[in-house]
């Protein structure tokens, strides 16, 4: 396969080009995650890893099938691949945006299914190009590949950081141009030493591409946000003006004003509300929202409508409270607190750009509420704030959970603030008679509400608060519900206050201590008092039965399974799917549905792009050798691929809680796994125990992975809560340190097993490689699916078991004969 003869070792420029291209490829992975969250919904983020692996896998298949026929020398080839990537990275995304894919139509037609496949293949093309350029460089330098490999890994690690930098410096839509420019630079670097005609033939287009991408002349920077997302919907309304847009690593924040049809966002507003809803400015994060800034005149009484929302209930139970308002960036929860008599408010907003817009451009519009002397605004992760605020004592912790889509589009979004662990921390910050209030959507049939209560009940039990029924008040309007938990049992006066608050606003009681069944379902009447019945059952002795028998998944959310809004139970899948045209489409969470769809598509795409090419050239491969158990070998490689990705994705999931944002988790997780697995793979190639020609055993790394998994599973919960309040640098270092040993071990089995197979039966090598590639594409999607239902711990456990299974299977694939097998040596790079 060594097409260009035996070249001298790779020069510095070539290595630099490899590093740059590798950085661009990993950066592409990170940026796609961000960009897809903006133009579609965030659940497509997890597709990106699967897509990247598809591109890598297809590249491997391509190199195996056609690599030997490539006559271009390594430098120019790398330059070509890099230039193609430079063009493809922004172009493929621009094309993918033009695909008329609409996830919301998934329950109604097969069309979105096909279009999603098109998008996945389009986005895999740049990964294919980068992997082909780097992979061939690795192959060409055969025995001296370690330096190329090192450059590849260093580049990848840097790429993750560069992507975050690009998101800081450039508007989101321009980041891929920036990345393309970096790849063009890689192309130019690789071309510098090329022979004269080829050199200029490559440098000229590189310069052209660079100019094109840096000036943005491609016109590809426009982000075409799905027209069904809240921001484009708001912008189509007569009179709407986009006044400001700020882009950063944590999201794209857009501010919209409308004087003709003013925003009047007031979910759950009482039908009996007397005060009008004042004009508002709407803020959208990644096109979702809105989060509103109500117009308010400094010094005037806060707008009265805020007292006619279900979330106002706790202010009727407290005297001059000290309030912690979580997710309060727009200022409405703060205004509500001040209107409710709060003496001091600590407001926490996770979105820095949102807070900045509210505090600067709309400071006077909002009456300067966020700069009020009684208000302190903290910009940062609410969960981390709660964990770090150990010395603080609040009379009220107010959580706004209305930011997520009410109809299941955010089913896969990790809700780190409303897990058992987080609720325990919030309860622990309360004064002796303090309250924790959570306001969310109340869907019908109930699912989010019962799950929230189940979660709270576990937190109560862990904090020794009980009997639970005495510590709870729960009310609802037709679309929102507010659950109030008290550290102390509610007094008779407080219970009376809850009743009169609800009655005066035509809100329904779901639960107050001592409530009778006939008091429920009075104002917003549903077929049965579903909410009250759910509360009664959850508070009663048969809670476990109720949770088990409920047709939605309402098990408590935990840090391990922080999917508060994923309610899908496979046991009732057919019933719900059958009802989708009979008025039951609202029972489906589309955000969740996208996941099994993605898994099926990953299977199709990886079979078509990885296995099919191998199948087509099977005849050329020669006869198979006797004595090799093909089934065992392929099962082993399949397990390895699944296991690696499941472990990686589960860790990234856990890091989402620790590192406070999915993007940071992805960046740290991807980079750390790649670099340390690379290190492990390099170590494995260096010295097999006993210097065995077969590349050493798979068993001991597998055993090591198993042992480490057990240690991590035992230590992760405590480690998570210990790290949550730590400084960002400490968190990143700790996460990296956690990954280092296990990823190093995880890098070992594959090259070892492949080396052994090469001696046993070289014909099988491409198949082992392809099987492994397919499995990793599947593993990425499967890991998320399993985590939603069973938690990250379960996924880590499965991955460890799969490593064990792989070790067993691979040990049975056959014995390596003493003398060299003599088959045609295939100089395959196992590390592509």
């Amino acid at each position, binding site marked *: 396969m060594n097409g260009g003869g035996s070249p001298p070792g790779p020069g510095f420029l070539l290595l630099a080009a490899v590093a740059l291209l590798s950085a661009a490829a990993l950066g592409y992975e990170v940026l796609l995650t961000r960009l897809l969250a903006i133009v579609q919904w965030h659940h497509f983020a997890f597709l990106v890893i699967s897509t990247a692996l598809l591109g890598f896998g297809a590249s491997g298949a391509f190199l195996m099938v056609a690599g030997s026929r490539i006559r271009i020398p390594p430098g120019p080839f790398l330059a070509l691949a890099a230039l193609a990537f430079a063009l493809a990275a922004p172009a493929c995304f621009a094309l993918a945006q033009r695909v008329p894919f609409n996830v919301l139509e998934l329950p109604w037609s097969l069309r979105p299914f096909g279009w999603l496949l098109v998008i996945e293949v389009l986005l895999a093309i740049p990964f294919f190009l980068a992997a082909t350029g780097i992979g061939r460089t690795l192959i060409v330098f055969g025995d001296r590949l370690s330096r190329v490999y090192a450059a590849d890994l260093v580049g990848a690690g840097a790429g993750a950081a560069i992507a975050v930098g690009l998101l800081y410096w450039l508007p989101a839509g321009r980041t891929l141009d920036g990345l393309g420019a970096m790849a063009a630079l890689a192309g130019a670097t690789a071309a510098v030493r090329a022979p004269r005609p080829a050199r200029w033939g490559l440098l000229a287009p590189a310069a052209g591409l660079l100019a094109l991408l840096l000036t943005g002349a491609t016109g590809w920077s426009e982000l075409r946000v799905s027209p069904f997302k809240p921001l484009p919907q708001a912008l189509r309304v007569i009179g709407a003006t986009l006044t400001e847009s700020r882009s950063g690593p944590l999201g794209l924040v857009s501010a919209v004003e409308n004087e003709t049809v003013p925003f009047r966002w*007031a979910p759950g507003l009482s039908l009996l509300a007397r005060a009008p809803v004042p004009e508002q400015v709407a803020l959208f994060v990644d096109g979702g929202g809105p989060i509103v800034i109500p117009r308010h005149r400094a010094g005037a009484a806060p707008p009265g409508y805020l007292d006619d929302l279900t979330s106002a209930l706790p202010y009727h139970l407290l005297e001059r409270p000290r309030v912690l308002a979580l997710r309060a960036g727009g200022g409405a929860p703060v205004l509500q607190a001040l209107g409710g008599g709060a003496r001091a408010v600590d407001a926490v907003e996770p979105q820095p750009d949102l807070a900045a817009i509210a505090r600067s451009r709309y400071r006077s519009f909002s009456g300067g509420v966020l700069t009020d002397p009684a208000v302190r605004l903290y910009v940062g992760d609410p969960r981390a704030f709660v964990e770090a605020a150990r010395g603080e004592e609040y009379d009220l912790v107010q959580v706004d959970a209305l930011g997520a889509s009410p109809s299941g589009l955010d089913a896969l979004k990790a809700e780190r603030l409303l897990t058992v662990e987080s609720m325990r921390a919030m309860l622990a910050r309360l004064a002796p008679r303090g309250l924790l209030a959570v306001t969310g959507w109340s869907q019908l049939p109930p699912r989010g509400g019962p799950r929230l209560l189940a979660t709270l009940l576990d937190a109560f039990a862990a904090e020794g608060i009980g009997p639970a029924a005495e510590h709870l008040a729960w009310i609802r309007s037709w679309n929102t519900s507010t659950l109030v938990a008290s550290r102390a049992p509610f007094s008779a006066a407080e219970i009376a206050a809850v009743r009169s608050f609800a009655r005066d606003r035509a809100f329904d009681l779901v639960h107050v201590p001592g409530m009778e069944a006939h008091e429920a379902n009075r104002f917003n009447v549903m077929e049965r008092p579903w909410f009250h019945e759910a509360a009664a059952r959850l508070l009663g002795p048969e809670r476990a039965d109720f949770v088990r028998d*409920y047709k939605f998944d309402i098990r408590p959310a935990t840090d391990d399974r922080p999917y508060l809004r994923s309610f899908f139970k496979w046991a009732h899948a057919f019933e719900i799917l059958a009802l989708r045209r*009979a008025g039951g489409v609202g029972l489906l969470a589309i955000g969740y549905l996208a996941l099994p769809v993605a898994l099926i598509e990953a299977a199709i795409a990886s079979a078509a792009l990885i296995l099919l090419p191998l199948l087509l050239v099977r005849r050329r491969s020669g006869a198979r050798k006797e004595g090799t158990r093909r089934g065992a070998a392929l099962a082993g490689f399949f397990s390895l691929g699944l296991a690696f990705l499941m472990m990686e994705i589960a860790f990234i999931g856990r890091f989402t809680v620790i590192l406070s944002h999915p993007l940071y988790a992805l960046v740290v997780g991807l980079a750390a796994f790649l670099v340390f697995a690379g290190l492990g793979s390099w170590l494995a190639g260096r010295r097999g125990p006993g210097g065995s020609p077969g590349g050493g055993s798979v068993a001991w790394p597998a055993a090591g992975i198993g042992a480490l998994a057990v240690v991590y599973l035992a230590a992760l919960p405590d480690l998570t809560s210990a790290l949550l309040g730590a400084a960002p640098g400490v968190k990143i270092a700790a996460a990296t340190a956690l990954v280092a040993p296990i990823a190093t071990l995880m890098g070992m089995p594959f090259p070892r097993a492949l080396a052994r197979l090469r001696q046993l039966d070289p014909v099988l090598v491409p198949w082992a490689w392809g099987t492994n590639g397919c499995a990793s594409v599947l593993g990425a999607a499967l890991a998320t699916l399993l985590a939603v239902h069973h938690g990250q711990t379960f996924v880590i456990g499965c991955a460890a078991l799969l490593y064990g299974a792989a070790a067993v299977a691979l040990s049975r694939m056959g014995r390596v004969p003493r003398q060299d097998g003599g088959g045609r040596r295939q100089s395959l790079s196992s590390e592509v």
Partner: protein
Amino acid sequence: MNEKSGERAAVAAGDASHPLGPFPRRPFPRREFIGRAGALAVAWSGAAQAGAPRDEMRRGMLEAIADTTARTAASTGVEAIDPEVMTALDRVPRHEFVPTEIAELAYENRPLPIGHGQTISQPYIVALMTHLLALAPHHRVLEIGTGSGYQAAVLAELVDSVRTIEIVPPLARQAAERLPRLGYDNVEAGLGDGYYGWPEAAPFQAIIVTAAASHVPPPLVAQLAPDGVLVIPVGERFSVQMLLLVRKRADGEVSVRQVLPVRFVPLTGGPR
């Protein structure tokens, strides 16, 4: 009422007094709709009705509505859709209200995209909502969120006077052109803020809010006649979660009902 209410632009087709000027009667630029996927969609939908006559497709749609209504009766309280509503649905050419590219899907019992991030509702939901309004010919009806104009046309088959307001200008223009063209001269279509209703024409015996609403606009409740009904489908585009029914009694008291449009008991074995 409110000073804002005066700003709502009551615009019938060609009304030159509207601040945005008269709506030109020109066909809507089709490429702004949903791309060129129509043919593919038909192929994939498995619908064999590509060449079937529209009357037959419409009958199929009515059968689907009747069937779904019967299956959901226990939860909606509606055993069967009022025959007059069914007749109205039979008369309105739904394919005229969807982009030409997907006209062949018009009579499937599903919502469809109509461009501008908007949808035309599922026929079953249209039928159920219209039924719940319990209309009589003399009723005055207000619709907030014209969209394609389909719901307004169905209402116009049943009552003498329908008013409809849209906030997305191209959709408002399109409906103002389309409805009279199809003979619905009893529909007055406007562009503007629906939050304040249409005070000049109030009170209304029925109000239907098909635009996304975070709360029930109090001005709309105020414009409801005694014994009047207001219906809001709650959910996202393409997926209605429930119907909200606000009824104003003769004494002015307001009651709210939440209707699940599907027969689904969330607990295995039913409620105990």
